[in-house]
């Protein structure tokens, strides 16, 4: 298996006719993802990269029995697109779009809870299980199939780390970027729980960053519930307080969310901490 995705995951690309949507649809197909449909209102009947385009999620789902979607729709229209996916019964919705108003994210995440959909993101690179499926925008070349699970709040930093793993001969079961916004649909803790239960995952890499308390909550879960080894890197040790470091979520406010607090909690929970990204593969090699 792997978590969340399988080789049978059937994916709709929401916003497939846009520049990014088209490019990433192609990259997902190259990865082996079953991209079964695209949706762009008013463009129904077209084809993009050989994939049929529909006017609505409802049409796309009833024609293709898709169960996952990836959202490239611009921020102002993203909430509507996500709600449409939820109402169409999509189980897993990866929201790539950045700069979505927090209120919108909050509402579609809560609505997804009512309807039983899983939101990944927003402002995230999605999810990939090498050899099975990718519902995301990570470069295909960085992956190799293996037994390490990767969960991260970051995008390119994850690529960096996954790439380093692959170069070190360490393959991945599933890599998931949960997103850098203050409010996100799938938390570290939820992903850790899935990895802990996953038969195809032996150990987990957690990539955190300053801001919020998600890493501290992850540490609590690791300490209480995880038997598999966890390797962690926290970005932003040298970041000054009060400054928003790129991600809307990456800010040390009122002495909360410092890298040190996260590193301390994770260390106490038994996780191994890397001080730079490229140290992660070395730690895994030593441990496993």
């Amino acid at each position: 298996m792997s978590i969340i995705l399988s080789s049978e995951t059937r994916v709709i690309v929401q916003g497939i006719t846009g520049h990014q949507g088209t490019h990433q649809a192609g990259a997902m197909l190259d990865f082996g993802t079953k991209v079964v449909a695209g949706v762009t209102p008013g463009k129904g009947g077209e084809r993009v990269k050989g994939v049929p385009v529909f006017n609505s999620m409802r049409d796309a789902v009833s024609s293709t029995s898709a169960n996952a979607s990836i959202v490239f729709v611009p921020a102002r229209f993203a909430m509507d697109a996500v709600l449409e996916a939820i109402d169409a019964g999509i189980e897993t919705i990866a929201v790539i779009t950045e700069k979505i108003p927090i209120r919108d994210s909050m509402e579609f995440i809560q609505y997804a809870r009512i309807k039983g959909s899983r939101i990944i993101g927003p402002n995230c690179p999605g999810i990939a299980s090498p050899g099975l499926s990718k519902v995301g925008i990570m470069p295909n070349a960085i992956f190799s199939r293996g037994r390490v699970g990767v969960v991260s709040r970051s995008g390119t930093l994850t690529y960096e780390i996954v790439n380093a793993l692959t170069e070190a001969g360490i393959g991945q079961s599933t890599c998931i970027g949960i997103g850098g916004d203050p409010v996100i649909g799938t938390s570290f803790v939820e992903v850790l729980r899935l990895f802990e239960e996953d038969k195809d995952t032996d150990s987990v890499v957690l990539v955190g960053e300053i801001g919020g308390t998600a890493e501290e909550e992850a540490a609590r879960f690791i300490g209480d519930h995880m038997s598999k080894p966890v390797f962690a890197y926290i970005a932003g040790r040298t970041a000054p307080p009060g400054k928003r470091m790129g991600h809307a979520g990456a800010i040390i406010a009122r002495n909360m969310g410092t890298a040190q607090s996260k590193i301390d909690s994770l260390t106490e929970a038994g996780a191994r901490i890397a001080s730079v990204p490229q140290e992660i593969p070395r730690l895994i090699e030593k441990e496993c």
Partner: protein
Amino acid sequence: MKLQEHRAKRLLESYGIAVPEGYLIRNEGEVLPVTDPVVLKAQVLSGGRGKAGGVRLASSLEEARNAAKDIFGLTISGYRPKEILVETEVDIDREIYLSIVIDRSAGLPLLLLSTEGGVEIETVPEEKIGRWHIHPFVGVKDFMVRGMIERLGLEGRSKKEFDRMVRALWILFYEMDCELAEINPLVLAEEGEIVAADAKVTVNDDALWRHPELSDAEEELTQLETEAREKDIAFVQLEGDIGVIANGAGLTMATLDNLSLHGGRGGVFLDLGGTDDPKKVEDALELMLKASPKVILLNIFGGMTRCDSVASGVLAVKKRLGISVPLVTRIRGTNEKLGRDMLSEAGVIALGSLDEACRKASEIGGS
């Protein structure tokens, strides 16, 4: 976007929340005759205004003018106040702390209430703070307000006023896409009146398009910060000498962290976001040059774009503007060898390993 106090108060007022009577001045000549004692407050966004002398009392016109003059002469966290809010002093019976923030763990708004107002909420003991999550789908409910009123021990008119006020604050928070709406102190004045004596409101930047009425709000940005915002680049001024450009917030932070291992200190943080668009790399380089770092470290982990395209972009800027400071690059992705070769040939330091690049930049930048 943080709103200036006077703007936050105007907003509260428009939602029916009482604020002290007051007016804004841009120079001391605009002070009006003083009948009741007034308080003059520098309109700056940074904290520590009071300690810096930015809040002054006055009970005569002359006092008020002098205070205004003093305040306009201050520099508070690097910023000179352009405006002062002159308010009638409120008779304080009790001070309360009330705010709504986004609780990231729950992914929901959280209302915080403390009987100890007028001090920073961080200094209030945990057990004195009451907390209520407000779900956007159901809003502030009667039982919550009952709980708050019980905690505050309110009776009579102030009970009714508080009830109305707290619901109004939630509507404001929701409708205005706030990340923070804080009233501290919320003053119980004479005869049960409730007045917001100070207010901090932060509106979610990503939702500003829904609030065109805020487009003229002042933000205290530097020239470079303004330019970065226009180009949709995250710009943070730091203390060191090395200008770091990377794509992605996490990667940019990781680059800074890695520098520090080699004794290097970041001077500018430029995050392009998740993109590796060569045009944006060019914009960032141009912006970085204006910030005059001692050395520039460019770290791009390519996804959509080929490394040779990124390299071409860098070389184009170099040709166009000339780059007098050393430029260390580390570009990974498709065609990375080609990209590195192109850069090396043009005299740019092009490395494959992040750690090596950081060491190199640190060596040049010194410490």
